């Protein structure tokens, strides 16, 4: 397929369709309305189903139902809406169902604002709703990567029978970049889901459930989930290392939009004689901690930057240990750092 110039939100919607997804359940919220709008126009053209739910609580439970029936489905929302979806997400994780969620993050807490933010890192990587569970969490940095990761997310969700969260922000959602859709999946070619509620014809009834009244059973279930997360950690960690030859004066650690702003800052720093590198986690859960350790060992300073008051930095510190000083620069509330700010902060550190 030829490259098309697309808004991030539209590319996410099209990627889902190309991945064989035909069902979307959602509710309007800025700054991701282009996704439901795109789906409401596109899905009827490909024989799919778009439902505007009465709320995000309802949308996430519609997904719980559809995924339980073995349907490839997804939704998108933005921070306050994702908070409302946590009920469904917790049940979906407990019942081990494959659903893809997209969070185009905006500033909080509460109603907050509508401009870009990365303040839902904790919510997305540490659980979010109640109970001991994790989402597989992917953070794109370009519109092309957003499209690629959405396509992949559906397969990962199926593989692990686990909800997958695509964590983007308002910049990724609103920005246009050239995109190419690399694979097309026909929904009819998707593998069968023998556990789904498709009608108990010639087999024992299937039950989709997260209730275990016997504590021994619930404990067993929880450890089984942990096994799954360990499996994800073994197979699915993804990251990018940028501009690291052998050694660097400073290593930036950042994800999503911030990482690409840093790439511009790295070019400017080069001109100023500072050799800077970037470590960009693509999976936020599982977090690529070992790769980070290895990379950081080659760099004199470590510098985390986020559109939050400091969330991912906790994972960075956990992996690098108490001995290692980790510098931080965050902008919040919808304010976005410029490459110039990052250069200035870097010069303070390396001097």
């Amino acid at each position, binding site marked *: 397929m030829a490259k098309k110039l697309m808004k991030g939100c539209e590319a996410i919607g099209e990627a889902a369709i190309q991945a064989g997804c035909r069902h979307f359940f959602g*509710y*309007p919220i*800025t700054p991701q309305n282009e996704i439901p*709008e795109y789906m409401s126009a596109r899905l009827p053209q490909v024989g799919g189903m778009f*439902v*505007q739910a009465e709320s995000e609580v309802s949308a996430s439970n519609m997904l719980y139902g559809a995924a339980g029936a073995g349907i490839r489905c997804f939704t998108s929302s933005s921070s*306050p809406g994702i908070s409302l979806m946590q009920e469904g997400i917790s049940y979906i994780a407990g019942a081990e169902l494959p659903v893809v969620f997209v969070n185009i993050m905006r500033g909080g807490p509460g*109603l907050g604002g509508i401009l870009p933010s990365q303040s839902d890192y904790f919510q997305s990587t540490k659980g979010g709703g109640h109970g001991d569970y994790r989402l597989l969490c992917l953070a794109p940095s370009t519109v092309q990567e957003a499209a690629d990761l959405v396509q992949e997310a559906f397969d990962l969700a199926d593989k692990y029978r686990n909800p997958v969260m695509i964590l983007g922000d308002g910049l990724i959602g609103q920005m246009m970049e050239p995109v190419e859709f690399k694979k097309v999946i026909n929904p009819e070619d998707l593998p069968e889901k023998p556990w789904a509620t498709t009608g108990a014809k010639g087999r024992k009834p299937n039950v989709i459930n997260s209730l275990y009244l016997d504590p021994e059973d619930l404990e067993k279930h929880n450890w089984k989930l942990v096994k799954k997360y360990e499996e994800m950690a073994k197979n699915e960690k993804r990251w990018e290392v940028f501009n690291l030859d052998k050694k660097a004066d400073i290593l930036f650690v950042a994800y999503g939009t911030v990482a690409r702003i840093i790439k511009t800052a790295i070019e400017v720093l080069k001109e100023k004689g500072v050799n800077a590198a970037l470590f960009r986690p693509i999976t936020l859960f599982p977090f690529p901690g070992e790769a980070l350790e290895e990379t950081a060992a080659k760099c004199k300073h470590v510098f985390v930057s986020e559109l939050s008051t400091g969330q991912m930095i906790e994972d960075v510190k956990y992996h690098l240990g108490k001995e290692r000083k980790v510098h931080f620069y965050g902008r919040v509330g919808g304010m976005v750092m410029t490459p110039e700010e990052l250069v200035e902060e870097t010069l303070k550190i390396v001097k």
Partner: protein
Amino acid sequence: MPTVFVEKDRCKGCTLCVEICPHGVLEMSKEINAKGYFFPFAAKPDECTGCRNCVMVCPDCAIQVEVKGKVSERPKALAEKQVHYCPGCHHGIIHRLVAEAIDSLGIQEKTVGVAPVGCSVLAYDYFNVDMHEASHGRAPAVATGIKRGRPDLIVFSYQGDGDLASIGMAETVHAANRGEKITVIFVNNAIYGMTGGQMAPTTLPGQVATTCPYGRDVNLAGYPIRMSELLKELKTPAYIARVAVYDAKTIVQAKLAIKKAFDYQVKGVCYSFVEVLSTCPTGWGMTPPDASKWVESNMVPYYPLGEFKNPDKGVVKETER
């Protein structure tokens, strides 16, 4: 002779005043104001009878009229701040009516308003009373908390159709059913405005919105919800009315209904609910005067105006309305 004053830099050029004037007094200027809008001026000042229809209809409170030395005034319960609404949006008119009701009952100092999420999310800046911002749809629950905690206060919520009839349906129905002594102002413009024109639970059959680009299909989305009719079926006593503000007559009726709704709360009688049919010129893709006409020609037939329930009479039959 009456005199019309236009505060030109408050004007957003919606032309609703020009349309409503029964004597053709007002015309739009050829020059633009500081915001880049054309504004009205009294082209035929001699024709003015001082009816003040232009004052009532101006969503931006940009017009005042002097009659026999008495100048119309901005309601005290309405803040000075200019509203952010699009040109010609009825929110401004409805804000004014709510503020007038508060003024006329002398309750400004004991009223607390609850603002929603939607176009009127910033309503907390527009009323000169204490305000509480709620999360999407939960205004009746927040209002319940305020009223149960401080029953001496007069508590109202101001909500749009997505907020009240979609995500907040449960809170809306249960607050009404518990008979909370609160006043709910429900602004129904058949669309989600703030987020860019998506389908609302009150979007009319066949009406195009950004999430029903082929028109609302009642087989997939159901029929638009008539909130007033739905709530009147609850056994708990209540005051429930539907009004509109598309012309002088309906604005006067709306003013009376909103005042009555607050009055029932002041007297501690019952829950009160006023649905106001409103416009979204931006989301509907119409000029403000055309949008006002569309309310009359397309919304009123589906959403009939009138009192639906009254604490004295119970459910009002259609023939009595």
